[in-house]
């Protein structure tokens, strides 16, 4: 397979598909197209059919397994690997956008060196490697440093081998979110150097102390699966979830109860709960829990209520619930980013322990290798550089110049390093400071492996020819080693001459095979691993006991500024590495719905107090620095808190990221906290600058005006029969029974009259069911849809005019929040409802939109003349118009597929041109594809043969697609669920999309 891969040349590939080229042609058919054959046929490629290769997503440390859909030798879409234990076939928004990293037009196209004028100039690989070798020969062993991201696999090992052979041990790992507090707390409380796996699926009562476990924390996709299993509504039962954090994060929006304590006091609250449990509810507690009574004594709820701002009875109630059922408390996110992060982590560990969760829902496995490193490491590196102890610095997979607080002075420090080599794929802030840039392959172009957690070894394989003249860093290092000769050369002269990194990797996997006591020949083991995407097994939980000597250093009082600023990782851009993916830039933040920029979240009352309106640009100033950004009015905050997402404010990193928004890290002090990480809290002041901008957000009103768009019930409500009388728009008056009959008769006659020609035969009616009790608003479906359907991004200015084009959007509505009533947020994925009586259809003068025999609301793009009447008449507003030509390079201002981004285009879907309306059609290309297969095989479609892109990627499995006329299908059963409702049902549009009401568990019925 790989050989076929290597022989492949893109010229041929492009020629055969014509996909890219033809796509650019828009709707013109007049151009002469060339057909360019392969020189040698590819045994695993059938032109016109997709091939799938297993690999691993490296967008964040979670390490989900993915399949790459490859057409004619180019990867066109990321899909989840169903076998992979981490994500079980689901992928998050960032994973879906990962191919925009591969095809990013700003990728470094070949090796570069810094010239005397300070600019970069291209250089050959040969010359580049020679330069490295010279420098290494000249540098004293000790002065050699290697900074990597969280590589978590054989590459880590390679780097360490490589360094040790050169006599250096300065390998530093830097991951912006390294969870230092958790590592420390686990050492302190359980004496184990690991992060446990949190079994959300088994937790009937979940309390998150700030952990954004559905966004970025540890392994969001895996968590979402577990959360959906435990917290989804299954015949009368569901888990309960309480979120403790000063800010209502996206994750918190799925909570049944949101408690906003004084910033930094989550730990105290957790200890208070533990206190109650050890004193009153010891049912499930392990025997040695009582010994903690003394330790917890000072945390009696009434004592701490003042500090946390949470009334004692709440603590008692929570503790009772927590102790009564299999439960789980999560330390993380904002809860473990303030000064007292370690206290929080320790407290949560204790809470889990006394509730008897350790070993049940908190499972420690034998420590996985590597870990995330620590901020302290970088601080040391900077110090060393300042002391001129670093002669040569290699940087791979880390971008400290951007991702650390500017106060740390990474840039200045690096200036003191005589020779810096970067292996960056994009010219990020750190690479921009390097002397030599040796661009690495994209993860999807290289051989590698990754260990998300103990027991899981996940493989990466090149799914296509490299897009640019890049080389895999592993190969480069080995090449350098060979040229260095000596100890280093000897170390890598090894097993496979010329084998390069792949051979090294296979050596490691040989060891793994022995470790697994697998007797098969290695090739067999290897091939299977490559096909499956890795090997994994369940490890026995290692039993842990609480340590005897635990010190609880008292929380530091918050002081200084008027507000506490919380700097949180963006659910879309993570720590900023997603900022050069246009899909992620245009993906509305699940909470604020703002795109393409930074906004400062302020509580409406706070804002009015400061005389600020939405869009007013404010200066947020802390002791460390200041940023300027527009205000977003967000009721989901404590009035004394402002929140700013990370991820923007790049000063390099390509056209989509550079100079956009503000970098919230400027607010943070550089000095590592006691727990070894960055404190992402700051005492700040907020002042208006007088400037005002129109926020590029996709949201109109954030209240649903009692229109029943997003409906919800409570478990108690269902028990009390709330579902019997369902919500409807209040009619002017109930229709008299006689008229009702007449209306039905008319309707029947009409249906009869539509049975004609191709409509006269029995066909399916495609439908979708969306369970709002599971939907977490994570927006993975949005990017998946864009990727599958060639949906272009339109850019900030257009979004500001509400011209975004994502075919599925996650509407977020607020309920309550008035004085004394809790604020509640609801998500509704809104896509074309494929109405049975579609209002959009009859108004189209040219039949461009119409009803297909199988019940879709079809859209023939090439027939559309662009009257836009259909959109006016669509009550759901799910039709999107091509205001400009996003599909042609002729107009660079609006071109959305800058080469090589256009290699992402799905050849099965028309690329829409200027002036036509487009919309969701339930991935009709997948339906037709499946129907063709079925016809050719002479069989009927079975339930599950067709899977829409949104359904396929949904981490919570909230979306189900299928045939409504097939009573046995999953979707048909859900469409009959008592919680079913259809949006704006009173309009008699007969939507094919059924929503299942969100269910909230207000507790008390444990």
């Amino acid at each position, binding site marked *: 397979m790989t050989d076929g891969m290597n022989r492949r040349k893109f*010229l041929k590939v492009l020629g055969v598909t014509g996909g890219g080229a033809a796509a650019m042609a828009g709707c013109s058919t007049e151009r002469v197209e060339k057909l360019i054959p392969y020189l040698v046929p590819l045994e695993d490629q059938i032109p016109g059919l997709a091939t799938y290769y297993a690999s691993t997503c490296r967008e964040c440390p979670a390490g989900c397994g993915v399949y790459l859909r490859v057409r004619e030798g180019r990867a066109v879409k990321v899909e989840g690997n169903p076998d992979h234990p981490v994500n079980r076939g689901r992928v998050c928004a960032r994973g879906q956008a990962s191919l925009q990293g591969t095809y990013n037009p700003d990728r470094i196209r070949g090796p570069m060196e810094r010239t005397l004028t300070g600019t970069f100039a291209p250089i050959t690989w040969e010359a580049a490697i020679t330069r490295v070798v010279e420098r290494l020969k000249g540098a004293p062993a000790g002065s050699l440093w290697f900074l990597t991201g969280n590589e978590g696999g054989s590459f880590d090992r390679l780097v360490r081998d490589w360094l040790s052979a050169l006599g250096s041990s300065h390998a530093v790992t830097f991951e912006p979110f390294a969870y230092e507090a958790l590592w420390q707390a686990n050492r302190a409380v359980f004496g184990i150097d690991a992060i446990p796996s949190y079994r959300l699926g088994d937790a009937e009562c979940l309390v998150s102390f700030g952990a954004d476990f559905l966004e970025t924390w540890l392994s969001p996709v895996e968590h979402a699966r577990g959360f959906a299993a435990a917290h989804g509504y299954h015949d009368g039962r569901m888990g309960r979830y309480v979120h403790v954090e000063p800010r209502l994060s996206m994750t918190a929006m799925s909570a049944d109860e949101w408690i906003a304590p004084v910033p930094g006091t989550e730990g105290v609250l957790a200890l208070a709960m533990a206190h109650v449990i050890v004193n009153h509810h010891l049912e499930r507690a392990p025997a040695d829990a009582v010994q903690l009574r003394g330790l917890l004594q000072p945390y009696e709820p009434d004592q701490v209520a003042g500090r946390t701002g949470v009334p004692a009875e709440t603590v008692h109630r929570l503790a009772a619930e927590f102790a009564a059922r299999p439960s789980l408390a999560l330390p993380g996110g904002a809860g473990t980013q303030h000064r007292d992060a370690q206290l929080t982590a320790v407290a949560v560990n204790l809470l889990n322990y006394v509730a008897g969760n350790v070993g049940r829902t908190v499972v420690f496995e034998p420590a996985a290798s590597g870990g995330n490193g620590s901020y302290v490491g970088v601080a040391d590196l900077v110090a060393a550089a300042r002391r001129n102890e670093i002669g040569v610095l290699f940087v791979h997979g880390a971008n400290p110049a951007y991702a650390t607080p500017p106060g740390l002075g990474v840039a200045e420090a690096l200036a003191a390093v005589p020779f810096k080599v970067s292996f960056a794929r994009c010219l990020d802030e750190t690479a921009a400071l390097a002397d030599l840039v040796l661009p690495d392959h994209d993860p999807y172009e290289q051989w590698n492996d990754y260990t998300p957690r103990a027991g899981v070894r996940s493989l990466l394989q090149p799914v296509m020819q490299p897009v640019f003249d890049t080389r895999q860093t592993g190969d480069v290092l080995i090449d350098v080693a060979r040229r260095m000769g000596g100890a280093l050369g000897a170390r890598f002269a090894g097993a496979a001459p010329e084998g390069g990194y792949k051979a090294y990797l296979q050596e490691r996997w040989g060891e793994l095979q022995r470790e697994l006591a697998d007797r098969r020949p290695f090739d067999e083991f290897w091939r299977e691993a490559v096909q499956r995407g890795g090997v994994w097994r369940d490890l026995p939980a290692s039993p842990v006991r609480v340590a005897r000597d635990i010190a609880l250093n008292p929380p530091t009082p918050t002081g200084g500024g008027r507000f506490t600023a919380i700097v949180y990782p963006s659910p879309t851009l993570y720590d900023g590495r997603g900022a050069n993916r246009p899909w992620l830039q245009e993906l509305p933040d699940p909470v604020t719905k703002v795109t393409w920029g930074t906004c400062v979240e302020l509580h409406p009352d706070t804002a009015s107090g400061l005389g600020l309106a939405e869009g007013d640009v404010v200066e947020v100033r802390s002791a460390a620095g200041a940023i300027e950004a527009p205000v977003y009015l967000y009721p989901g905050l404590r009035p004394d808190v402002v929140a700013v997402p990370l991820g923007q404010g790049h000063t390099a990193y390509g056209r989509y990221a550079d100079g956009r928004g503000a970098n919230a890290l400027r607010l943070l002090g550089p000095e590592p906290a006691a727990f070894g990480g960055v404190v992402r809290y700051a005492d700040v002041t907020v002042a208006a600058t007088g400037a005002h901008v129109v926020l590029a957000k996709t949201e109109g009103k954030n209240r649903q005006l009692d229109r029943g768009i997003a409906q919800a019930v409570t478990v108690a409500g269902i028990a009390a029969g709330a579902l019997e009388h369902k919500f409807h728009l209040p009619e002017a008056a109930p229709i008299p029974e006689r008229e009702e009959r007449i209306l039905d008769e008319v309707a029947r006659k009409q249906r009869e009259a539509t049975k004609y020609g*191709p409509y006269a035969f029995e066909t399916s009616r495609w439908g979708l069911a969306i369970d709002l009790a599971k939907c977490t608003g994570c927006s993975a479906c949005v990017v998946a849809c864009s990727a599958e359907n060639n949906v272009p991004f339109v850019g900030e200015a257009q979004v500001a005019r509400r011209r975004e084009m994502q075919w599925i959007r996650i509407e977020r509505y607020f309920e309550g929040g008035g004085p004394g009533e809790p604020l509640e947020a609801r998500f509704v994925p809104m896509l074309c409802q494929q109405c049975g009586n579609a209002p959009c259809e009859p108004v189209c003068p040219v039949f461009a939109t119409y009803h297909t025999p199988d019940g879709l609301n079809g859209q*023939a793009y090439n027939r559309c003349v662009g009257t836009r009447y259909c959109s006016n008449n669509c009550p759901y507003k799910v039709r999107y118009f091509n205001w400009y030509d996003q599909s042609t390079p002729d107009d660079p201002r609006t071109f959305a597929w800058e080469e090589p981004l256009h290699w992402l285009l799905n050849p099965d879907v028309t690329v829409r041109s200027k002036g036509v309306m487009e919309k969701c059609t339930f991935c009709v290309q997948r339906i*037709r594809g499946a129907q063709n297969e079925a016809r050719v095989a002479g069989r009927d479609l079975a339930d599950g043969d067709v899977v829409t892109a949104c359904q396929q990627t949904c981490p919570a499995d909230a979306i189900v697609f299928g045939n409504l006329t097939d009573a046995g299908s999953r979707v048909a059963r859900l469409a009959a669920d008592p919680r079913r409702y259809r949006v704006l049902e009173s309009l008699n549009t007969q939507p094919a999309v059924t929503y299942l009401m969100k269910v909230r568990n207000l507790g008390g019925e444990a």
Partner: protein
Amino acid sequence: MTRWVVPVTTGAAVVVVGALTVFAARGLRSQGPASPKVQPDTVVDLTYEAPVDVDTVGLPGPRQPIFYRHDVHAGQYRMDCRYCHYNVERSPSPGLPSLASCMGCHLIVGSGNPEVQKLRDAVAAKQPVQWVEVHRLSQFVHFSHERHVVAGELNCKECHGQVNRMPQVYQFASLKMGWCIACHKTKEYKDQPGRPVTTDCSACHY
């Protein structure tokens, strides 16, 4: 009563015009290669010999970088279309023979033929031959060879004409929508007699 004549006749005229529009439409539709006319099957014609030398200029269809003779390969030697267009039964796109498969024969066969020499040079230079596309559908039309050939049991020549008699391949059918529809309106599902194959827009346009 002469004054009746004029209005009556003119009135009639307008009606006729109206009717004509309608039938004109009919006509327009069925014209062009309507339901593909099937020529007598010539595959059994074992005696066919392709003309020895033909002048490309005089022939219809675009001129190709190499004057590949379908009439020789498919006609005289009666090679099956699927030998080169190997995907036609398993993929929407019929597939284009790789130069390797050409060389399968032409390593030995055809020495001395200047056109074959071009092929060998191309392979030697590792330069793919850039054939000119003859049958082109717009990117907003999605056509599956697999379904038409396997499920639809269509013969290649119904859409491509008698390629085995074409020294240089030309576009036989208009490949316009009206032409597709004309056929779809006549054909029926093999397993459901009486059910016409679909004329649903979204069968091809998505």
